[in-house]
């Protein structure tokens, strides 16, 4: 049994010191690893990433993160990634990591993801270069996520995203902004590769639970949705055991 704690959209600012640390210091009592689903800072300022790293310093389980759109706003995504890596956090973008948990292995493939919309109403890479670039970016991150997930050799496999792969978890958001909240291309890549769980954030006005068209559990862990420091999901290990 593997216990996965997950949260996204914590939006740490320069004024956030001390706000999250008390909630995270006991995470090891409840979970075996912590997933951070992007929008970890307010506007991608490296100073905010310094505060974030300090807030997470007492987390004593493996921590895996992806960045979100806010983390790219100051064009310092690479620097923020480096800061988090230096703090011991694994930051994924089109790649994966495997964590050993109590005799089992859990593999996490991660990507920010991107938008474009959902089947039947998805933007198409047709026309202006800007439109081709928009959907081209989504196709690229989805392809890399699928490859990373497909190459994982682990008892449990998780896809970690910021943008949503499905409409299910967007219910409550305005329909007009769905194309900016996620893309079915992410779900298609995940379903082809196979996974046990997908975790994402970004949709503050959405709902927690959904499923890909291929039947993979999807959880929107944006903090305004789950209203907790994190939620914990239990996944069976190689023997299929559930939570204790």
């Amino acid at each position, binding site marked *: 049994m593997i216990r996965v704690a997950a949260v996204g959209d914590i939006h740490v600012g320069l004024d956030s010191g001390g*706000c999250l640390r008390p909630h995270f210091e006991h995470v090891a009592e409840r979970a075996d690893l912590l997933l951070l689903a992007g929008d970890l800072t307010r506007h991608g*300022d490296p100073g905010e990433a310094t505060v974030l790293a300090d807030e997470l310093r007492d987390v004593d389980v493996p921590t895996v993160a992806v960045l979100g759109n806010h983390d790219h706003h100051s064009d310092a995504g690479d620097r923020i990634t480096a800061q988090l890596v230096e703090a011991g956090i694994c930051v994924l973008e089109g790649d994966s990591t495997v964590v050993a948990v109590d005799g089992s292995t859990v593999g996490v493939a991660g990507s920010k993801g991107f938008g474009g919309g959902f089947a039947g109403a998805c933007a198409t890479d047709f026309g202006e270069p800007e439109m081709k670039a928009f959907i081209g970016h989504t196709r690229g991150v989805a392809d890399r996520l699928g490859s990373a997930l497909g190459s994982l050799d682990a008892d449990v496999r998780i896809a970690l995203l910021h943008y949503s792969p499905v409409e299910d978890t967007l219910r409550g958001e305005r329909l007009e902004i769905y194309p900016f909240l996620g893309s079915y291309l992410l779900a298609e890549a995940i379903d082809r590769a196979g996974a046990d769980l997908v975790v994402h954030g970004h949709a503050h006005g959405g709902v927690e639970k959904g499923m890909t068209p291929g039947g993979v559990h999807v959880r929107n862990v944006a903090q*305004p949705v789950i209203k907790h420091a994190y*939620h914990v*999901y239990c996944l069976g290990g190689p023997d299929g055991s559930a*939570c204790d």
Partner: protein
Amino acid sequence: MTGGGPAEPAAYLVERLREALAHDPRVAELGISVTVSGDAVLLTGDVATPERKAAVTEVVEPLLEGRTLHNGVTVATLAEVDTREELA
């Protein structure tokens, strides 16, 4: 609005305020909903701290051109983690 001319159409004001809330570093929020009804402007959504809610007012008020602000933004509180979900 200047010179006693017609008020800015509500749709344009809504987007001007949303842009300000997204780009002003005191707020940097994309998820605050703006509704203009007559002379009233209602803001809803969640922020993490009372200071950020106050910053929302600071950013928006200079742009209202005489309209009345109702800052209905909620300061989110985090509940203690006490449950977990089993996924088959």
